[in-house]
């Protein structure tokens, strides 16, 4: 029998309704699993077992009362430590927020609470979401559950590892340049970055405001739709959240893929790509074709410029967003200083790690007078061209399918000394953020060494429905053998 902690939201919800188990039993099973495996994986920065058990007891009361039951009622969820959680420490994996207890909830966590979710803990991540491996966390690296000598990806590495290893049923992450999809791919789970503006950023600690977007990380596509349904929607507290009605994502899941046009961008199958990844992804594309989809070769001609564009825009926005960490109103303050300037300098130097400092400096440089035109403005112009690539491509196809990453999970420490190599690992995920469109990664196979491989599906802005329904069709048809971290 599959242990409770390895089941999906939809299965567990049915079981809770039929009283096959209670939320307290389910939550205890997850907490026990965390106690067992957390020492090996380190998915969490903060574990909130007591809060979880209280919420679970409340969920059980709701089930017993006969009142309407919200969709996540009693389901143990892990929250990336970038979402402010009222009364629970929120660090963004940085020393500078090591003692920060938010006095309010992010909109995402408020909505999860209202849907009855049980919060088991705050997950590890790259510091301020700056990284692709979870190695820049001040609180230590997370290990890939499939091979603990490898990274789980990042920045939402803790969230991905927690789902993959049964330390929660589902989680939420954020994606600025691939931070949901890349770890989802490297850990063998489903992750969705919604369209920019679909999910409120209120209370989600800002990295790059024009790129950041929160989204679900789950065991299967249906769970992904369930969580998206809860967190999507306009929020008056975030002026960039878009005022459009939220469709019923579950209703469209079985729409099917027959007759759909799938764009295959030639720029995403490049020399130097891992052979097993390429082979597995091509096989998945073959499956889609066999299901009645029509393949269309497309071109996204500015793809090669995406990484350079992103690594100007994101650090520029970050350098401005991170100016707020000055030791005055919240967060860390250096213990010894003589004057205000020294207080600022020491607080920030002691509070931020090297990758964060590097990006703040890169951004400050790109925005400084004399360089603004050459870097920041130029990157914004190339961003326009990248968006146009996508708009033109979507005239010819309904979705775009690519590998999520050029390689499976890399070794811990392999790329830490060379920031540029680390940046290049985001090559297939970054354009989607620059264009603002939705993107999903789902498992499509394993390497012969047992490392998960992800398939990326990109859609038109605000067409999460087609992204989810295509992913669902693939998942149903491919029927990949269900593997867990333990099975070999």
């Amino acid at each position, binding site marked *: 029998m599959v242990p409770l902690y390895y089941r999906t939201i939809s299965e567990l919800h049915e079981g809770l309704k039929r009283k096959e188990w209670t939320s307290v039993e389910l939550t205890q099973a997850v907490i026990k699993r965390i106690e067992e495996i957390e020492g090996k994986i380190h998915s969490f920065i903060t574990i909130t077992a007591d809060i979880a058990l209280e919420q679970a007891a409340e969920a059980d009361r709701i089930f017993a009362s006969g009142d309407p039951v919200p969709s996540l009622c009693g389901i143990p969820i892990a929250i990336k430590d970038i979402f402010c959680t009222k009364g629970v420490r929120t660090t963004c994996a940085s020393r500078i927020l090591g003692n920060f207890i938010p006095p309010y909830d992010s909109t995402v966590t408020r909505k999860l609470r209202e849907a009855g979710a049980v919060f088991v803990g705050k997950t590890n991540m790259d510091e301020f979401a700056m990284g692709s491996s979870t190695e820049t966390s001040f609180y230590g690296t997370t290990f890939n559950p499939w091979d603990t000598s490898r990274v789980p990806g990042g920045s939402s590495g803790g969230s991905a590892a927690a789902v993959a290893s049964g330390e929660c049923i589902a989680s939420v992450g954020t994606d600025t340049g691939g931070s949901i999809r890349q770890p989802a791919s490297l850990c063998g789970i489903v992750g969705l970055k919604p369209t920019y503006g679909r999910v409120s950023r209120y209370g989600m600690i800002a990295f790059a405001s024009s790129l950041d977007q929160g989204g679900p990380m789950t065991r299967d596509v249906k769970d992904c739709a369930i969580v998206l349904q809860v967190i999507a929607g306009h929020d008056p507290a975030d002026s960039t959240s878009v*005022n459009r009605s939220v469709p019923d994502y579950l209703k469209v899941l079985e729409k099917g893929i027959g007759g759909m046009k799938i764009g295959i961008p030639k720029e995403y199958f490049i020399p130097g790509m891992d052979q097993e990844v390429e082979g597995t992804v091509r096989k998945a594309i073959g499956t889609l074709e066999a299901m009645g989809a029509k393949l269309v070769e497309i071109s996204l001609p500015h793809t090669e410029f995406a*990484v*350079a564009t992103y690594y100007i825009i994101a650090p520029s926005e970050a350098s401005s967003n991170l100016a707020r960490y000055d030791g005055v109103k919240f967060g*860390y303050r250096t213990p010894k200083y003589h004057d*205000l300037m020294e207080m600022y300098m020491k607080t920030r130097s002691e509070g931020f790690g090297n990758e964060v400092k590097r990006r703040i400096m890169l951004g400050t440089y790109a925005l400084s007078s004399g360089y603004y035109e050459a870097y920041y403005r130029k990157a914004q112009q190339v961003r326009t061209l990248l968006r146009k690539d996508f708009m033109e491509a979507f005239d010819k196809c309904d979705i775009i399918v690519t590998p999520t990453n050029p390689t499976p999970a890399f070794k811990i420490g392999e790329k830490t000394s060379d920031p540029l190599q680390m940046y290049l690992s985001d090559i297939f995920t970054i354009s989607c953020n620059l264009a603002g469109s939705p993107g999903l990664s789902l498992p499509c196979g394993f390497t012969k060494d047992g490392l998960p491989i992800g398939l990326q599906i990109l859609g038109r802005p605000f067409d999460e429905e087609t992204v989810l329904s295509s992913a669902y069709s693939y998942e149903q048809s491919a029927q990949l053998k269900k593997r867990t971290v333990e099975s070999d």
Partner: protein
Amino acid sequence: MSEKKITEEEVKHVALLARLHITNEELKAFTEQLNNILIYMDMLKKVDTTGVEPTSHPVPVPTPFREDIVAPSLSQDLTLSNAPQKEKKFFKVPPIIE
């Protein structure tokens, strides 16, 4: 190092602008890394962007307006609850003017 996009002096200046103190050892490493990154960025020069409008927002949204209605906000106590140093109802900082 092949090409100099950024000097140690410039990195020092940028660090000061960003209110970061960096040691001499860090200065060397950061300069080399930033230099490599900036050389990579140079590829953008190949793209003809004449007459191309910059994108600052992926999904264009008009300025959202709302009614000017007073709503509850955080209490003073909660607002001060994370202050590294406070006195009475204020955030406390070192003297700014001697």
